[in-house]
């Protein structure tokens, strides 16, 4: 009986190790600001005397059938590769219906609404871990028409371009724009997926690249230059040491550091961590929780608050919750 139980446990552990998977980033196709402004899908407002244009995605998706065709084609091709995308139009609709529901809902006992801070409100936007930014222009020379197509994969947290495919299609006398667009998508998609795969392979080898910010509350009496421990190291150096010990190959860059804040870019966090003997997928929230707990303990005893943005961005506020 003991042997059977041991075998069962061994199999369970093996399965867990084999099938443990990294957190899958979400991807969404979004028309570029350039495309939206060129095609006049914009909202304009006066920001203290400066005219600001912001893209009106809802109008673009409702009125431009070429855009819908390209998004649909891209979604289809990515799904065929086993990587279904978030559909922007559906996300925008969900956000609207969620907002309406949140506004109407009240608790049974006291009739209270759902709690929502201004930050919660700000976070209610269409988002994805990787944005596929789409731009195309129609070139005309006499009766000939061609399409210049540009597809960029942008990491939402590091702001890096992680994938790309761009080029100009074959000029045609007779083909309709939609046919040329379809051809452009088909001809560029493999190159886009290849560069995206290179990004994922780099992630597997060197860890996920994320961004971490450290800030302090206004009313906290200490700051990042306060000295702690027997060696009297400044808090900023202690945080850097923790990052060096816990990132993949100690890889991170300190972009900014003052007594009030620190910004870390190109922080490579491992894809997995172990908990209760099981391998689990890591994200920035889980990673930064380690630093948060470290700072809460002796000799620092710093109460702190962690906020995150998707898989790849986290902020710790020091000196309170």
């Amino acid at each position, binding site marked *: 009986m003991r042997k059977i139980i041991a075998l069962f446990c061994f199999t369970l552990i093996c399965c867990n190790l084999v099938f443990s*998977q*990294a*957190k*899958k*980033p979400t991807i969404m196709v979004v028309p570029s600001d350039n495309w939206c402004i060129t095609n006049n899908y914009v909202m304009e407002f006066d920001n203290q005397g400066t005219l600001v244009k912001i893209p009106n995605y809802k109008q673009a998706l409702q009125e431009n059938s070429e855009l819908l065709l390209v998004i649909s084609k891209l979604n289809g*091709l*990515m799904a*065929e*590769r*086993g*990587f279904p995308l978030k559909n922007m139009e559906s996300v925008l609709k969900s956000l609207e219906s969620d907002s309406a529901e949140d506004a109407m809902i009240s608790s049974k006992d006291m009739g209270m609404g759902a709690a929502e801070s201004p930050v919660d409100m700000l976070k209610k936007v269409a988002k994805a871990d990787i944005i596929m930014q789409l731009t195309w222009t129609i070139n005309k020379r006499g009766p000939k028409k*061609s399409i210049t197509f540009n597809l960029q994969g942008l990491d939402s947290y590091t702001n890096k371009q992680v994938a790309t*495919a761009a*080029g*100009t*299609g*074959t*000029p045609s006398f007779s083909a309709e724009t939609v046919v040329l667009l379809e*051809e452009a998508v*088909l*001809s*560029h998609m*493999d*190159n886009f*997926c*290849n560069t*995206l*795969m290179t990004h*994922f*392979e780099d*992630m*597997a080898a060197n860890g996920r690249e994320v961004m971490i910010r450290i800030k302090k509350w206004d009313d906290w009496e200490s700051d990042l230059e306060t000295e702690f421990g027997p060696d009297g190291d400044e808090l900023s150096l202690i945080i850097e040491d923790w990052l060096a010990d816990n990132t993949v190959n100690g890889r991170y860059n300190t972009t900014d550091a003052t007594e009030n804040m620190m910004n870390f870019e190109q922080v490579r966090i491992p*894809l997995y961590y172990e908990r209760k003997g099981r391998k689990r997928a890591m994200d920035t929230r889980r990673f930064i929780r380690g630093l948060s707990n470290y700072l809460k303990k002796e000799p620092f005893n710093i109460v702190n608050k962690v906020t995150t943005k998707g898989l790849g961005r986290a902020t710790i506020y020091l000196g309170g919750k």
Partner: protein
Amino acid sequence: MKYFKILGVVIITVLMCFPTSTEAQSKRRARKKANIATAQWRYEIEGVGTGREGTYLLKVWSYSKRPDVAIEQAKKNAVHGVIFKGFVGSKQGVSTQKPLVKSLNAEKEHEQFFKDFFANGGAYMRYVSTTADGAVAAGDRMKISKKEYKVGVVVSVRKDELRKALEQAGIVKGLSSMF
């Protein structure tokens, strides 16, 4: 007399068979040479258009002393090229593509798989077809030496299915394989 009659029939039969057997042997030899040329990357491949969804439209230039063998070999070369070589778009609008397999040693690492895959009549045939029934344009059949032709054939390679097959065999990683 009867003995001579039988001998005569045998000789005539052998003589009738001989040219056929020489023809078959010559073709077999040419095919063998063409296979060696494929393994030595002796072929050229270029993208000539955007194919239907999931396909590449390619022109493959193969070498052989027999034009018919070169045309046959074009299919094998096309699949071989898509897997190991990649290709350059020959005109505006046709994008250059990298090979499906990234590792330089993939052919050696999976030697048995590719040996079976590229055997005559092997699984590669599933992923390729000639366009225009393999008809060769007038300028695409060139005699480059006394004993050799260079033949350009346009073929269509079902790259999505080919990639899936390689993913299943564990040779190529899928986009979502690590998630």
